[in-house]
Structures are given as C-alpha cells and as structure tokens.
C-alpha cells in the first residue's frame, strides 16, 4: 500500500509545478489540503485560468467521498475526545480508510483503534509528503517517454474497484463513466460534477432503499 503512495505523490508534485504553481505553494498545498486527486485536478484548472469558485467546487465534488468515510469512521470514534476525532479527520486518506476498515472489521472491539489509525495515518502522511516534495523538486525532470502521468488514473482504478462490489455501486460507477465521457465537451472539467450526480442518481435508483 505504501509503495503505491510514492508514484502517485511524485506525479502530484510534478503536476502542480508543471501547471505553474510555485514550489513552496505546492508543498504548502500538499500539507494543508492533503488530497492528491483534487490537487492534480485543481492544478490543471488553475493552469486554464478557471475561476476560484469553480476550482473549490471541483475540490468539493472530488473530495465528497471523505464525507462518506467520515460517516463510516464515526461509528468507531464516536466516544473519542474531539482532538482525536479532528486528528482522524485530517489523516483520512483513501488508502488509510481502506486499511482501517479491514482492520476494524477483524477487531471490532479493539481499544487501541485511535493509536492504530494514528500510526498508519502518520506513516502514509510522511511518505506522501516526501513523495510530493520529490515530485516538486524533480519538476519536469521525469522523461516524458516513461509516461509516468498514466500512474495517476491507474492509482484511481485501484482505489475505485473495491467500491464496486455491490450491484448498485457498480451501476453508479458505470453511469459516472458514461456521463463523464458524454459531457467531455463541457468547459473546465464540469463533466466530473455531472458524472458525480449521474452516478449517485443511478445508484439510488438501483440500490436498496434502506
């Protein structure tokens, strides 16, 4: 899992610098936002002079999945002090969440859930920041012939597939894929917003009502 953080982090760093974000701001963004997909998307939007509001809206749509993770993690940390819940919130990343869900399913009554989350979250955080820093320093130095930019969609394939185990979530993913391609002509990557809505609507139509 850690091994996958490195190429994605490096690409994120490279993408931010390549779109004209100053290196120090890119590093600051990585620490403050700490969400690679939204950082790559907004770097591309910033390069095309998109309005601030649209960049923030796109960030909301791409990172809306954290709200679902937050709802799920609440079941495990409801009785933890606020400072611990805030730390969990900040360190929530796709891979940390996936790892924790597996761990908590095996050990539902583990009293050290926070310590476990903190340990895994901090390791991922450090490796991620180091990888982004590496990407920022390399800048455009990666030979284009390696086609490393393709690692970003590949990382998202790996992250998205485990969410498609039920029929309704699979339908949601297929609807989102169709919508994002159909509306590709929309400016400023608004097709992602349309695809998110289409996917959720399709999932609600097909899924169970409970």
């Amino acid at each position, binding site marked *: 899992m850690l091994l996958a953080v490195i190429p994605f982090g490096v690409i994120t760093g490279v993408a931010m610098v390549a779109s004209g974000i100053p290196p120090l701001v890119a590093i600051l963004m990585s620490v403050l936002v700490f969400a690679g997909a939204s950082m790559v998307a907004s770097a591309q939007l910033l390069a095309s002079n998109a309005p601030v509001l649209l960049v923030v809206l796109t960030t909301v749509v791409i990172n809306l999945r954290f709200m679902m993770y937050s709802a799920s993690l609440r079941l495990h940390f409801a009785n933890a002090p606020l400072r611990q819940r805030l730390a969990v919130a900040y360190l929530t990343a796709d891979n940390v969440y996936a790892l924790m869900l597996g761990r908590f399913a095996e050990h539902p009554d583990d009293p050290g859930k926070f310590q476990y989350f903190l340990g895994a979250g901090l390791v991922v955080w450090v490796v991620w920041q180091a990888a982004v820093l590496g990407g920022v320093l390399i800048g455009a130095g990666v030979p284009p012939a390696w086609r490393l930019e393709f690692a970003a969609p590949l990382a998202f*394939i790996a992250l998205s597939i485990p969410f498609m185990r039920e029929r309704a979530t699979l339908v949601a993913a297929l609807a989102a894929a169709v919508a994002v391609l159909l509306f590709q002509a929309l400016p400023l990557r608004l097709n992602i917003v349309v695809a998110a809505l289409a996917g959720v609507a399709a999932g609600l139509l097909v899924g169970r009502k409970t």
Partner: protein
Amino acid sequence: MTLWLTLAGMALVTFALRASFLVLPPGIDLPALFKRALRYVPAAVLTAIWAPEVLVQNEQLPAGVVAIAVAWRWRLTFATIIAGLAALHFFAWLL
C-alpha cells in the same frame, strides 16, 4: 492572490468534508436519503476521475483493462500501477 484564495478554499472545504460526521454530536443525524446517496459517491467520483484518461482509443484502453483486471483480482494498488504502466508500454509498442 487568486492562488492563495484557491489554496485557502481547498484546504477549508477538504477538512470540513473530512471532519463533517466525525465532529457531529452523538444525537444528531443526517437525512436518510443523504446518507444513502453518500454510499455511491466514492465509486462514482473515483471512476469519473480515471475514465476520461483510460477509456480513450490507443494503448490507454487495453492498459486500463489490464489494470482493472489486476485491481479486481488482487486489490493491490502498487501491482495495479506497475501492471498498467507495463501494459501501456507494451500496447504502445504493439499497436
């Protein structure tokens, strides 16, 4: 200035989304429809991010199929990236 506003906005909304349910007091809950809708967000949004880069012609499409198969079977992110990149170069050479 635009860059700083963007940075502040992104940091704020991302943390708010992460903290949303975790900081809600125990008694308070959200509408059932909203929670049902949230269930489909990760599959829809994560797919919408990769689909335009993969479901195009040329070598990206077969490389994407290889990556999806690896991810489906083994659920290992690093293996998926390596297999996908290797397949991309193989199909670029082949096609």
